[in-house]
């Protein structure tokens, strides 16, 4: 190094140079700082504060993995908190097809990918009951990273799936011959789902309703109370990396689920069962297009039971139960309209006929005309009218059901006979304005406001357009279309002393522990008629059951008030000129002096010869009403006449001597039949404490080892009470006669033990009577 240090530069010049350098350095600093701050402060700020939200949400679309945790849907109970519908946890099986493809692309063995999808897809398809082709197609849908394979995987299916997913799948061999495995859990995941469980397939199906694939209600209570039932779904937001792998829980945000509330229906399981059994029997025995029925608490408007048959299986709601409809639909399969027609047919099946359909109420409507006329003082119980078979209004002749005329009759008789001209005359006397006042007051121009979706609007004449002919036909229930729920609600107004209630089907909404969150209280819409008028109409209706067209609804020990109807379907196109399309219905309540429950039943389009509501519908109503009254602990009060025929309880005779047994039988007005030569009674039929008719038979056995005597139950159908008793005695059977057995023309239409069934001698058979003659209304 030969450089020499110059220790003495001229200080002034040196200082100046240094200043110049400082200046250059400083200017440079400002320049680069300006650049630095521009790219950082401004550019980064621009990205964050102007575009940040867009970028973030775009990034999150791929980063985040949002899993919905379904809230468990609430339980639906009957009024006694018996669960009718419950929910269970289920899962949704999901697959990441993209990941499968990526994996096998890395593996790079020809055919391995296809073989894998075939094999695993096939096994999964088998486990969950899907078509293999469909599952394989989903697994090979490699464009997507998330595909839902199967919803509503239940616990059993889950077990089977877990086994498949956790099993190693050998896609290749290593050089040493060991398996190279892949686990399906790398591609498949579960999402939470819930399952709706219906313990009894068809039970109350149109009331309960169905849920769609996502678990929200689409008909019935499930729909109307969907918000309460569904609860609030929770979410788990997890992040995933670019390979679709879920990151650890520190990236996880959980939003809790709120379980769905429970719904307590006003429906009583037992009453619903009485109703459904009766309706199914009626549907089978009449071969009608359908039957419907409602049982309502007259004081509150709460629906105790409601059903229409045919309904559907809640566990298979998408199977058409109406064979004819399904057959008709088949013809359209493959056409463009098919899907829409199928949907329409399904909704028709799911909807409750009682709420969503209208019918011409017919003669049951007469009680409202009578009530209005009584309230207005236009008629009273002493009013009389002579029916000559027809009534002429403004040039139109309207016939009575009885073409030859009912002749001279009082108001009560008019209702018992269901005389059309009498009621037309009442309507005409009131005039459109007065009539319409009550027509509106009974709620026939508006919907009832029941807590179910899809309630039908009534199809009625507008007041300003109502001609006298319209008035005439409306007076006896034709030319208007009302829903069954409207009819029974109006009927309850007469039963409960004039109050029109808002019908309701849900009693309360409860939390998961059963605490009541909200309760539906009975709501009085208005006072339609006075209590006195209501009482008068009830009295008239009781007469209908006692001696008029409603005799078939007669129940021993209970005072039933009712009215029959047979209404022609005037608006339906008939396929055959002579075909008679009609609805036979019966509206009643009991007890007549202090009504508690009202029942409306109807038979839609019964085929064959013409039979009225008294023949077809009244026995159904009775079948429902009798056990219902007993179930509700309504004390029976028998008339003297009834008491004579009242059934007895069999005394215990086992262990007694033959003579003692004889004395006991005498004491109880029973016939005794002794079999064998022994001294002591060893067994008896019927056993002690059974109910049998007065003068019934008790068979006692005195020989040990002697076989019980058996008899084949005879067919009582069509017999009168006298011949039933005779036949039963001949067979050694006990019979209990139910219905109007004493009335003229009453014959047996059904019996509790089917004919030709082998039973022990002395067994009891209940036979139901009905009157089929002279019941036109």
């Amino acid at each position: 190094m030969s450089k020499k240090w110059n220790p003495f530069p001229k200080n002034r010049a040196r200082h100046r140079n240094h200043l110049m350098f400082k200046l250059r350095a400083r200017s440079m600093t400002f320049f680069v700082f300006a650049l630095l701050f521009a790219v950082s402060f401004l550019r980064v700020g621009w990205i964050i504060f102007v575009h940040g939200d867009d970028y973030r949400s775009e990034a999150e679309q791929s980063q985040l993995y949002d899993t919905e945790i379904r809230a468990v849907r609430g339980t639906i109970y009957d009024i006694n908190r018996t669960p009718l519908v419950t929910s269970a946890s289920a899962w949704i099986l999901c697959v990441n097809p993209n990941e499968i493809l990526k994996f096998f692309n890395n593996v790079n063995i020809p055919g391995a990918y296809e073989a894998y999808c075939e094999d695993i897809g096939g096994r999964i398809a088998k486990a969950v009951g899907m078509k293999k082709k469909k599952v394989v197609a989903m697994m090979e849908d490699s464009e997507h990273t998330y595909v839902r394979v199967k919803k509503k995987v239940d616990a059993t299916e889950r077990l089977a799936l877990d086994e498949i997913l956790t099993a190693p799948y050998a896609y290749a061999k290593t050089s040493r011959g060991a398996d190279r495995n892949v686990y399906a859990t790398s591609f498949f995941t579960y999402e939470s789902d819930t399952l709706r469980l219906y313990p009894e397939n068809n039970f109350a199906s149109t009331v309960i309703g169905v849920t769609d694939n996502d678990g929200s209600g689409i008909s019935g209570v499930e729909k109307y109370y969907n918000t309460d039932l569904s609860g609030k779904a929770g979410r788990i937001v997890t992040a995933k990396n670019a390979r679709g792998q879920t990151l650890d829980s520190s990236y996880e945000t959980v939003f809790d689920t709120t379980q769905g509330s429970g719904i307590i229906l006003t429906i009583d399981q037992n009453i619903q069962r009485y109703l459904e059994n009766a309706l199914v029997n009626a549907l089978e025995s009449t071969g009608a297009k359908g039957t419907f029925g409602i049982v309502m608490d007259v004081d509150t408007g709460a629906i105790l039971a409601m059903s229409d048959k045919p309904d559907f299986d809640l566990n298979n709601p998408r199977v058409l139960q109406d064979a004819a409809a399904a057959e008709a639909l088949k013809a359209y399969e493959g056409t463009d309209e098919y899907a829409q027609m199928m949907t329409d047919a399904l909704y028709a099946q799911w909807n409750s006929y009682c709420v969503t359909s209208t019918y011409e109420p017919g003669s049951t409507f007469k009680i409202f005309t009578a009530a209005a006329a009584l309230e207005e003082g236009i008629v009273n119980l002493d009013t009389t009218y002579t029916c000559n078979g027809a009534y002429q209004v403004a040039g139109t002749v309207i016939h009575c059901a009885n073409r030859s005329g009912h002749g001279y009759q009082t108001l009560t008789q008019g209702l018992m006979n269901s005389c059309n001209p009498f009621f037309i005359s009442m309507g005409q006397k009131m005039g459109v304005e007065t009539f319409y006042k009550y027509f509106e007051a009974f709620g026939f121009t508006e919907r009832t406001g029941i807590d179910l979706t899809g309630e039908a609007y009534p199809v009625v004449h507008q007041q300003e357009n109502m001609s006298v002919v319209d008035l005439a036909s409306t007076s006896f229930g034709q030319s208007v279309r009302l829903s069954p729920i409207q009819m029974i609600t109006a009927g309850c107004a007469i039963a409960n002393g004039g109050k029109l209630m808002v019908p309701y089907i849900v009693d309360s909404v409860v939390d998961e522990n059963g605490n009541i969150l909200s309760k539906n209280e009975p709501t009085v819409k208005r006072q339609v008629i006075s209590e006195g008028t209501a009482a008068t109409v009830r009295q008239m209706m009781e007469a209908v059951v006692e001696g008029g067209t409603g005799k078939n609804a007669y129940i021993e020990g209970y005072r039933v008030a009712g009215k029959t109807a047979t209404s022609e379907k005037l608006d339906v196109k008939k396929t055959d000129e002579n075909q008679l399309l009609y609805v036979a219905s019966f509206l009643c309540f009991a007890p007549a002096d202090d009504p508690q429950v009202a029942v409306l039943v109807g038979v839609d389009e019964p085929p064959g010869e013409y039979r009225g509501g008294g023949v077809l519908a009244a026995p159904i109503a009775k079948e429902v009403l009798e056990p219902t009254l007993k179930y509700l602990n309504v004390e029976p009060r028998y008339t003297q006449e009834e008491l004579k025929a009242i059934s007895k309880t069999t005394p215990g005779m086992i262990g007694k001597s033959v003579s003692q047994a004889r004395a006991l039988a005498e004491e109880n007005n029973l016939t005794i039949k002794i079999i064998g030569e022994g001294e002591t009674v060893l067994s008896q039929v019927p056993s002690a404490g059974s109910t049998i008719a007065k003068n019934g038979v008790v068979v006692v056995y005195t020989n040990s080892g002697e076989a019980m005597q058996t008899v084949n139950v005879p067919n009582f159908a069509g017999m009168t009470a006298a011949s039933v008793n005779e036949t039963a005695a001949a067979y050694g059977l006990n019979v209990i006669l139910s219905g109007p057995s004493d009335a003229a023309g009453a014959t047996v239409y059904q019996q509790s033990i089917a004919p030709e069934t082998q039973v022990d001698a002395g067994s009891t058979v209940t036979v139901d009577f009905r009157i089929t003659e002279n019941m036109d209304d």
Partner: protein
Amino acid sequence: MTARTPNARPADRSKPGTLRRRLFQHGGLDITFTCLVLILFAIGVVMMYSASYATSVSKTGSPNTYFRQQLVAAAIGFAVMLLISKLDYRILNSIWAIIIYVGTILLLGFTLVYNVLKGNTMKRWIPIPGFGQFQPSEVAKFALILILAYMICIFAPVLKGAEDRSTMPNLGGLTKGERIVFSLFDCPWKATVFMGMTALVIVGLVLLEKHLSATILLVGLTFAMLWAGGVKKIWFIVLGTLIVAAVVYVLYINPEITKVFGEYGYERIMVFREKDTAGRTNYWQTQQSLYAIGSGGPFGVGFGNSKQKQLWLPEPQNDFIFAIVVEELGYVGGMIIILLFAALVWRGFVIATRTRDYFGALLVIGIMMQVCFQVILNIAVVTDTIPNTGIGLPFFSYGGTALVLLLAEMGVVLSVSRSCTIEAA
């Protein structure tokens, strides 16, 4: 052989003329600068750990692999930094500058030839057995700074247009060879052209290696050094205008021209212009970078909570680490880091203006400019302001060689800071 004795030295008790005297200096370190280096390094290595976490797990199975390697490099780097800070940098103001310059050129040339012969498309690395890959262009930055500082010192009188040559500190100390060179280019434009050509050799070789970011950086450094050395403004106005025009022409008017250097650069430019995400590979990284920055918001998602580092943003520990930093620490955190960089650069300029040694001042200016340009270019790439060039963020980006070289340069600055005598003006 007299040692270059600084004017004022605290407690130099070694005997003059000894080796110790020649090699080491004894002034105090600049504490502020040292602290800033330490703070930036600490934040950088921690953020690198966070950013590399997911990638490290995915590639090596352990989250700590990159972090551990970076710590090893840091340990070496710190040792190197402290050693260099103790050495007398003025030893470089000699034939050594030329030796390093020529050595670098040979290295760059060798790399180029090696890769051309190997048929590699990327020609900037050479493998070193047992070490990994080495980028000679990293060394080229320092070599350029050094040779330019050396030459500016030689040509100082001409460049300033100074009448009195004796004003320059080392003028009297020019060696024979230096004097000959000086006399050959004895006027401002000759000197400027000569220095420009000297720089152009390195710039050209790096460009041939297709290391675009390093080329841009080297050009910037050449300009900065010449400006600091007092080259006439007209050069900058003319050349600056030409370069801006060329950039605009290449980027927006006729990108086809870059095809001369191969498809690679052209593709990147087109990707930058068209923001094409369809191809995924090209714009994907930049797009994910914007997502990361955008997700940060004012205060970030919190340290360690970046989602974009979960393999969304490729190589998050490397060139795009700043995007992850902003995502985790937010605008505020990111800007504090920028301010720390600015403070470092500012402190570097303070050191440069306080030292009496022109050569040292120029070295510091060059090194500081290098850091500053790298930060600017890196953030410009991360924020999609310029095409993706592939340039790391000093102290932050993963890479052992780069970190050791950076800390070595910091050592040079500290070494210069030991000779500071002038109090803040």
